[in-house]
């Protein structure tokens, strides 16, 4: 018996040690991911620190790790002249893969036509939770580690500003905006959203509208329904459709995200553009009665969606509408135009969500200039190209977005839907998007999306209103 025991435990011991050691290591590693990326403040490359106007405005220089890197001075104006002379690399970081990657490649091609001696490194990384989830996580370790890409995709507005500008990792783009005359071609509201402390921080490469309700034309027609414009019409339509055995509105909120966009549109509809804007600046309190109205609308809306909305992903509803199983699509962005095109589904129409007429909920993909960019001049040339008429018309027509420039050419390959959007964009009231990064910081966005998901699950108006208000406080915007 003793002999057996010792044999057995020796065997077990070998097993245990062999397995336990790696396990402990992995467990320990997963616990240590937090702090590895302390930036080094040694930026010896920049000697002439003629800090630009902006750096003086950014108030918190002491803790800023890259204060010295603020200015490599070389004004953009000098750069754009010697195009053939530009050499070296250009590393562009984005979350554009798949069909978006095709549009990006076209823009790269255009860049290389102008700067044939620059080698472009495409560091695109798709996937993750929320728009660009994986890419943003990697970007953080890169920038904090003092190794930023030359330029990176980011939503114009708070997503860039609250993460990277207030913390002094970006260069202001005043010179570039002046030189390229952006004030004349971009709507003023767009430049406002891009700015902080009076300086613009990224160049918009496109404009997307995220408050659209797509619908299946024949399903609505068959049930004798006109595309609804108000909440009353919308709910009436939903009721009719439900009685006819059709899913009125397709929604997929797993993982959380889509219901955040729905809540966003419903808030716009219930509050109107000004009060909606105020929510994100602290002017409109979340305790406002109109927020309660919005949540009640959202709650009623949830009684008309497919029963498995908490299980399915955010793209499955596209298929449900295309197949005619559902009549209308969760309120979402204009990229669905491209999605339907990819499915060869043409029988669709699009209207604003209820009470969202003449309002453009704006999300822009943009690029900025990180401090310590290794090929700064090449990056500036990239921004110039991406902000130019030719660059935008090439990129956006392929990407399924529009160019926010007032002089963009509708015949540069845009489809009918995009052409209509190009007209609307310059007529409508612009408000910043929440889930898609323009209005609020990333951390607030995460909270907002999770709160919308909790509401979609529990349908408790009072507690959701409290959660939304708490998120505003956590973001240091509300008191």
């Amino acid at each position, binding site marked *: 018996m003793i002999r057996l025991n010792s044999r057995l435990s020796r065997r077990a011991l070998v097993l245990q040690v062999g397995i336990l050691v790696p396990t402990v290591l992995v467990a320990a590693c997963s616990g240590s991911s937090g*702090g590895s990326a302390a930036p080094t403040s040694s930026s010896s490359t920049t000697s002439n620190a003629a800090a630009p106007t902006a750096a003086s405005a950014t108030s918190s220089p002491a803790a800023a790790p890259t204060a010295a890197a603020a200015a490599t001075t070389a004004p953009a104006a000098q750069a754009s002249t010697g195009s053939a002379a530009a050499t070296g690399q250009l590393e562009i970081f984005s979350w554009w893969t798949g069909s978006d990657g095709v549009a990006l490649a076209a823009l790269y091609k255009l860049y290389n036509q102008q700067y044939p001696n620059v080698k472009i490194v495409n560091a695109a990384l798709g996937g993750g939770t929320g728009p660009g989830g994986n890419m943003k996580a990697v970007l953080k370790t890169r920038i904090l580690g003092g190794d930023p890409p030359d330029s990176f995709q980011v939503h114009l507005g708070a997503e860039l500003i609250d993460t990277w500008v207030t913390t002094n990792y970006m260069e202001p783009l005043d010179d570039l905006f002046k030189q390229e005359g952006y004030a004349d071609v971009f709507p003023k509201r767009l430049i406002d959203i891009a700015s902080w402390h009076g300086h613009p921080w990224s160049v918009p490469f496109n404009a997307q509208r995220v408050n659209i309700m797509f619908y299946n034309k024949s399903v609505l027609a068959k049930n004798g329904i006109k595309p609804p414009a108000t909440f009353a019409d919308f709910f009436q339509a939903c009721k009719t459709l439900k009685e006819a055995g059709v899913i009125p509105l397709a929604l997929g909120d797993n993982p959380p995200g889509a219901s955040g966009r729905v809540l966003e549109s419903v808030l716009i509809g219930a509050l109107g553009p000004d009060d909606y804007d105020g929510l994100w600046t602290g002017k409109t309190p979340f305790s406002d009665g109109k927020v309660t109205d919005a949540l009640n609308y959202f709650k009623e809306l949830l009684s008309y969606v497919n029963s498995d909305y908490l299980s399915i992903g955010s793209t499955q509803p596209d298929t449900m509408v295309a197949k005619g199983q559902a009549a209308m699509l969760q309120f979402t962005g204009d990229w669905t135009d491209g999605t339907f095109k990819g499915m060869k589904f043409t029988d669709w129409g699009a209207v604003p969500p209820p009470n969202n007429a003449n309002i453009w909920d704006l999300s822009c993909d943009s690029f900025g200039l990180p401090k310590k960019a290794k090929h700064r001049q090449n990056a500036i040339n990239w921004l110039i190209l991406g902000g130019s008429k030719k660059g935008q018309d090439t990129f956006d027509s392929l990407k399924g977005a529009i160019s926010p420039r007032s002089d963009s050419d509708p015949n540069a390959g845009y489809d009918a839907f995009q052409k209509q959007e190009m007209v609307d964009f310059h007529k409508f009231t612009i408000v910043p998007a929440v889930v898609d990064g323009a209005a609020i910081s990333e951390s607030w966005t995460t909270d907002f999306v999770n709160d919308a998901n909790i509401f*979609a699950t529990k349908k408790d108006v009072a507690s959701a209103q409290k959660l939304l208000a708490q998120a505003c406080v956590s973001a240091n915007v509300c008191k």
Partner: protein
Amino acid sequence: MSASSPGPQQGTGRIVAQAPSATRWRLRIEADRLKAILVVSPSLLAIGIVVYAFMVWTGYISLSKWHDVRPNYAFDGLENYVQLFQTQRFLIDLHNTAVFLVLFLASCLVFGFILAVLLDQKIKGEVIFRTIFLLPFAVSLIATGVAWRWLESPESGLNLLFQFAGLNFLKSNWFADPNIGIAAVVLPATWQMSGYVMALYLAGLRSIPAELHEAAAIDGANSVQRYRFIVVPLLWPVTITALIILGNVSLKIFDLTTAMTGSGPAFIDDVPAFFMFQTTFQSDHFAQGAAIAIVMLLLSSILIVPYIISQQRQEAGQ
């Protein structure tokens, strides 16, 4: 038994037999020791820095005021922990972890043991079955998650299967059903890991000599009694090993839940690791994220440390 542990006072036979002068003897031992230190030091250094130094570092960050991408090492005491334990989401996460841990351990051990006992019956084609049961263990948890996301989708997968079989009452929303929640994630986790537990148990079963079974049979023990009084007690060390490993898997589970459902509706499938990821890399609350990491580490330690201590005692006793 413990002859392998090198130590200065434990001379090898050769030295004792032909004892040189005391100084030379000591030199020799020191040279040996130096060599040993030199050989292990690279890995010690690597583990020391990559694992333990960063553990300490994470611990410090969890006491700091680092709340945006810009590092802020100002000391903040236990504030992050106080806030963490007031956060509804984290309390839900702890509850989910406990549920996952218990269900996952129980199901893996039971299925693993049953599979091992069945395979131990000297059946034909054992190698094939063993491979089939063990193979899921080689699959990435992400792949498992993606596949099971579809299997547990309300309109397809398992529900469709139940529908064809006329078992409509078994249909459910799985991971989106608040009554099931994270238990729906235990299912694929068990699918993946019970084969591994089977392998552990099988190795243990094979090391039990046939004489014991025979002796018990002669004494009149039936097969249930033989398992109850001989096999199960003798496999106890294997069970402990499995408990420790699976316990760790459940405490730090991330990929599976993330690929399957993210945090699930209203956090019903949320786990601390996913919360830590969102807090750190999406919300930039690095200090808070570090606090979550440390709580996870402590939970793992509760599981591991007593085990390591008992192992050391056992070794010392032999």
